[in-house]
């Protein structure tokens, strides 16, 4: 188990290098000069421009800049934002809980609805309930997030007025962040109605973000479940006289979940990408929105740092997923 863990951690190192390389050079391919962006509409004179260029190290060859950056990263220094002049890591850590909160709710939503829908479709294979859930999930999978999010806002927030349009909590409430997670902080604050407000702000972004993973999980659960239901041990379980519900939920689902867990792990990456769109549309103050803004301002250190951290997160989640297999499936319990 430990050996496996170290081997997997070893795999992360080259991936990590690859990400720094890609992110660093790709950003520099985007047209636009960060110094001119900082200067704004009035611009700067040539002398000041050269001065600033030297100050940020842009006068060096790109390779040198890259290694300077890399050395910083390995010392835990992601650089300072061009815009706010604050360390990228600090900004990231401030905004990160908002994204984690949204992403967690999104994946919870996807799992809580996706798996039961998949199971239902599988046990009613070929009947209307199967067709309904599968066509709904195909629709969900095919919808662009930004469009779906706008539809949700138009219907539930504007027309029906059931949910707030954007933000994390109503401006009526103010309290110091403790954990950074609004649901928890609102409870801790003890202010009446704060939790309800925070929760209602989460509903639409959660649905918008969780729809695609839900669709993928539902389809995966269905096909995996169908395969498992045809296995001999399911028949044996039924021959023991177990109730159909127990056969499905205990004997079949446990085996069917193995590929589904992989998919959930992979969806975390999709989810974080989706968070960028969702956060922008719902004005959700998370890292997605932060990275988009940084891109508009050519804030190189912020973009690099943000993407690097996200990549790191995705790798970590997939490592956790690999470790989870062993718990669910004894055949892949890692030895040595």
């Amino acid at each position, binding site marked *: 188990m430990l050996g496996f863990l170290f081997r997997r951690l070893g795999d992360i190192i080259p991936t990590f290098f690859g990400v720094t390389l890609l992110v660093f050079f790709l950003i520099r391919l985007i047209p636009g000069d960060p110094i001119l962006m900082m200067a704004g509409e009035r611009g700067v004179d040539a002398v000041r421009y050269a001065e600033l260029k030297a100050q940020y190290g842009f006068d060096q060859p790109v390779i040198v800049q890259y290694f300077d950056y890399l050395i910083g990263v390995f010392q835990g220094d992601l650089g300072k934002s061009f815009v706010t002049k604050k360390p990228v890591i600090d900004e990231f850590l401030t905004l990160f809980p908002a994204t984690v909160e949204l992403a967690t709710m999104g994946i919870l939503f996807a799992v809580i609805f996706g798996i039961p829908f998949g199971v239902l479709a599988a046990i009613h294979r070929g009947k209307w309930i199967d067709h309904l859930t599968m066509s709904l999930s195909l629709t969900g999978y095919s919808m662009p997030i930004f469009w779906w999010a706008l539809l949700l806002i138009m219907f539930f927030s504007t027309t029906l007025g059931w949910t707030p349009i954007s933000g994390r909590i109503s401006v009526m409430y103010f309290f110091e962040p403790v954990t950074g997670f609004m649901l928890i902080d609102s409870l801790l604050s003890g202010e009446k109605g704060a939790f309800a407000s925070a929760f209602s702000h989460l509903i639409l972004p959660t649905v918008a973000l969780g729809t695609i993973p839900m669709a993928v999980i539902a389809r995966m659960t269905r096909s995996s479940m169908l395969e498992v239901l045809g296995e001999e041990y399911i*028949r*044996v379980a*039924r021959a*023991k006289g177990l109730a159909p519900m127990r056969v499905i939920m205990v004997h079949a689902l446990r085996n069917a979940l193995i590929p589904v867990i992989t998919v959930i792990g992979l969806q975390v990456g999709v989810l974080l990408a989706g968070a960028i769109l969702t956060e922008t549309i719902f004005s959700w103050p998370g890292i997605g929105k932060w990275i988009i803004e940084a891109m508009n301002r050519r804030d190189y250190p912020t973009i690099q740092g943000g993407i690097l951290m996200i990549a790191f997160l995705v790798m970590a989640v997939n490592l956790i997923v690999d470790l989870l297999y062993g718990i669910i499936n004894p055949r892949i319990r890692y030895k040595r």
Partner: protein
Amino acid sequence: MALLEVKNLTVEFGSEDKPFRAVDSVSYSVDRGEVLGIVGESGSGKSVSSLAVMGLIDFPGRVTADALTFDGQDLITMPAKRRREITGKDIAMIFQDPMSALNPCFTVEAQIMEALKVHEGGNKKQRRERTLDLLNQVGIPDPKSRMTAYPHQLSGGMSQRIVIAMAIACNPRLLIADEPTTALDVTIQAQIIDLLLKLQEDSDMGLILITHDLALVSEAANRIQVMYAGQLFESGPADSIFAAPRHPYTQALLEALPERSEGHDRLRTIPGVVPGQYDRPQGCLLAPRCRYANDHCVKSRPEVTDFNGRDVRCFYPLNDQGQPTGLTADTTTGETV
């Protein structure tokens, strides 16, 4: 009264108007302490008929029967919940492939204890003790350490012993063994059969032994039921069937035994295959493969009749010399191979 009474059991698949009969009006009964052997080639409906007895035929399969009673209780009209109380407790089944019969995600102990929990209740400690007992009973060496093993850590023979332990956990009165040794090594096969017969004798169970191994049933079974393409072809006491088969199919099956091919260059076989859904003959289902078949056989289907105290589905049942009876000069057009 017989323990299990099956009368005209029919299992159909496919559409209502053009159904495929996997099992066609099969009748048999098993008594306490009796071993019934059901033999036939692959595709004869042996397994499907026993699944129907277990109540494991799913939609779109349709099970009908004039009678399907266990210990006097009608299994067909019984509510599903009540039937599940019998399934796995009073009637248990052992399946063909032990390697796929165990759920890979659960330990041996958990899988055996599950059956006990559902049917007998009791506390965890009692169930664990009983499981240990069972593992001892089916001859698992070092049962304590096997309790926590997962199926992938067991050999085929070991798995089949676990499957048997699982089936006999609740002291069933009827055990259905569906080709319990097909997937095992020859050396293990005899051990497993011996184990099954010993368990059957010790507890006076009824045992249905489904197999295509005739040598096996000849030793083990009291009565034999020969099936072909979903139909009952011949049934009667084991020794008399072996001494004098009344149905040409039984005769051909016996001739195909390797030990009866002595003096021949090649092992004898029955040419052709069991008809499936789309190639059912109009007349007797065996007609295309039967060495005695004539026009009458090709055109109409025989019913099961009593011949010298044996149930036989043939127009011309064989006599003690193995020659068809009842043939008249004008009907003898079938060639003798």
